[in-house]
């Protein structure tokens, strides 16, 4: 008799998801699926709204990375306006995006994943959370909170609000940077460096303990997609997309936002509201790939800031080619956070950073526009169509969690095959299956542009559909 295991909800994620593991008559894992079970309809209800409302409207998709949606949306609007934003506005937005990346990576590493990494996958679930970490390692607990505050406070200084700042608008930003705010950000940097270095040291000390997890946490060859600069260094806000194959060879380079839909398609599976994104010339599912920190560091040739460059060189020692195990998302995330702090410091030394010219204006000059950036979790694309009066007629958002969806499902299956034996699983095994998803740091509310609540359930389902075992959180 076959069985199904359901993990519902998957915990310590942004949003709500469910994992189902199907067992055959012998109690072996036959299939596993990661379900995202909400739908929100942002693309639909934006129809009829003026296009320049889109950044603030789309930012409401998520409270974790509203900045990503703000910037991607503003870029799509600027394509409709056919304007190039002032240099200072571009630099300020870049800083805002990096600040968000740092705070989001801090949230993912410290608040969501460090309980598994520092306390152990099998530790008591009653204490396996950020407060447990803070009790066991107060220095790391404080570092996590401090690093998150660093990113959030920069967002607040620039945009007046920590969440959903209205400062990013089509054409640039509404206010230039005040000298006092620049000085305040500069003063926060030493502590931020110390916090991320502490995290890197702690991670390297414990990573070796997780060889088993590294070997089965979505550890398979795949393609990788991400933004890159002309000099092949890492980029989060501008640049073009590069797709590489499992050996690191370039499949396609220079994919601009305008060409995004030519290259990237979205497939639908009946078990999830999140779409499965793939590279069109390779078809679905062969054209699936991964995005986010792991993918970005697999794609780039350099980081471009001194401290992060050293960490990147050490990180690349893990493999001669692309690094395949999704466990290393954690490591890549910390390297990126360090880069983010260094880059923010570099941007603040730009002689034009206090310039008052931060906005370009224009009306509707094209009826279609697209924008793409790197959100903390991976590539984010907004694509809009408008009528001649600038009212939205169509919108499509392709988000990081959609890009990673196929890999997450494969990763869950791989981990389930390792940890579910004879139709049984321990709490620690279940936690490891969830931890695979956590490595990707998916944002489910974002991926479905959805609302509503879905608790996480892990179900063990028999071949005839009977639920044999279930854990509900």
């Amino acid at each position, binding site marked *: 008799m076959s069985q199904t295991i359901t993990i519902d909800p998957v915990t310590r994620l942004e949003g709500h998801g469910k994992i189902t593991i199907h067992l055959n008559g012998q109690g072996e894992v036959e299939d596993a699926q990661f379900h995202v079970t909400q739908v929100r309809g942002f693309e639909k209800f934006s129809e*009829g*709204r*003026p296009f*320049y*409302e889109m*950044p*603030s*409207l789309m930012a*409401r998709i998520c409270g974790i990375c509203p900045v990503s949606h703000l910037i991607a949306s503003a870029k799509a609007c600027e394509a409709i306006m056919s304007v190039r934003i002032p240099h200072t506005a571009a630099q300020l937005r870049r800083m805002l995006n990096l600040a968000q990346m740092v705070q989001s990576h801090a949230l993912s590493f410290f608040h969501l994943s460090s309980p598994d990494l520092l306390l152990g996958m099998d530790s008591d679930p009653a204490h396996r959370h950020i407060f447990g970490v803070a009790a066991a390692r107060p220095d790391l607990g404080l570092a996590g909170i401090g690093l998150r505050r660093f990113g959030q406070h920069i967002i607040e200084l620039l945009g*007046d609000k920590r969440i*959903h700042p*209205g*400062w990013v*608008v*089509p*054409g640039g930003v*509404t206010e230039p940077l005040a000298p006092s705010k620049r000085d305040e950000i500069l003063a926060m940097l030493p502590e931020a460096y110390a916090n991320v270095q502490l995290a890197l040291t702690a991670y390297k000390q414990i990573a070796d303990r997780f060889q088993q997890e590294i070997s089965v946490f979505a550890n398979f060859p795949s393609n990788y997609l991400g933004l890159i600069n002309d000099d092949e260094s890492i980029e989060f806000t501008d640049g073009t997309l590069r797709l590489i194959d499992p050996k690191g060879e370039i499949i396609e380079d220079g994919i601009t936002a305008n060409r995004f839909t030519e290259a990237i398609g979205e497939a639908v599976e009946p078990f999830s509201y999140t779409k499965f994104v793939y590279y069109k010339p390779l078809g679905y599912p062969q054209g699936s790939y991964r995005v986010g920190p792991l993918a970005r560091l697999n794609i780039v040739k350099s980081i471009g800031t001194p401290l992060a460059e050293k960490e990147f060189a050490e990180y690349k020692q893990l493999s001669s080619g692309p690094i395949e195990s999704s466990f290393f998302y954690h490591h890549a995330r910390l390297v990126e956070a360090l880069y983010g702090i260094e880059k923010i410091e570099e941007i603040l030394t730009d002689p034009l950073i206090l310039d008052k010219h931060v906005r370009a*204006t*224009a*009306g509707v000059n094209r009826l279609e526009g697209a924008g793409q950036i790197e959100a903390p979790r991976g590539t984010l694309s907004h694509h809009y169509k408008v009528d001649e*009066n*600038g*009212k939205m007629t169509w919108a499509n958002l392709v988000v990081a969690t959609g890009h990673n969806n196929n890999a997450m499902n494969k990763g869950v299956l791989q981990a389930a095959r390792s940890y579910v034996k004879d139709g049984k699983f321990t709490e620690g095994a279940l936690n490891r299956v969830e931890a695979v998803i956590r490595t990707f740091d998916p944002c489910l509310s974002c991926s479905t542009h959805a609302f509503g609540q879905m608790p996480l359930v892990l179900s063990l389902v028999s071949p005839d559909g009977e639920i044999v075992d279930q854990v509900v959180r």
Partner: protein
Amino acid sequence: MSDAVEVKTLIIDEQEVSARRGQTILDVARENDINIPTLCHLEGLSDVGACRLCLVEIKGSNKLLPACVATVFEGMEVSTNTERLQKHRRMILEMLFAERNHICAVCVSNGHCELQTMGQEQGLTHIRLPYRNPSLNVDASHERFTVDHNRCILCTRCVRACAEIEGAHVWDVMGRGINSIVITDLHEEWGSSTCTRCGKCVQVCPTGALFDKSKVGTDHPKNPDFLPYLNLMREAQ
């Protein structure tokens, strides 16, 4: 007849005040720094008593009167902020919020909206009525401005500013009751109407119903204070 100003004495909120004959309660109250909340009233425009937020109690009468159009009389005793009035005002605001679509978070006037400010000042914490969420048109045909009927509270400030100050009378109201909407000319698109593009209607709109194209949220303050000045300059001529 004598041209001498006829003075009336009355009491507003237990404060003895004097007024000229024909003055409204609202005028007299504001001259004496007594706040009566308003939305459809705007200095420089005629009053229509549409929003009913300025309702006040008059001693000896069960009927509440709109302070913006009710004139003073000798010996009048006015209360402007009783519990009963506060309750009514909150109910009026709840109905305004529920009638169309006033989601502040994504509105172009967020932070600069008189309806939003009024809700905060009157202690409005939630809306007990179901939102109607009608799907009304957004007319973006004008080269400079947009009208979003979903955010309109039918205060008719735009209608009065256009007719009384600009003298164009492009704006007016169509329909009756809850189906009323403001229209340009004979319900033509704003962009192809006889609009003079002066923008006064946008400046006097208390909500995000009328707004400058390409301006959003924090960068969209409105400045309706020019109306009394315009009137003054015209009278001087």
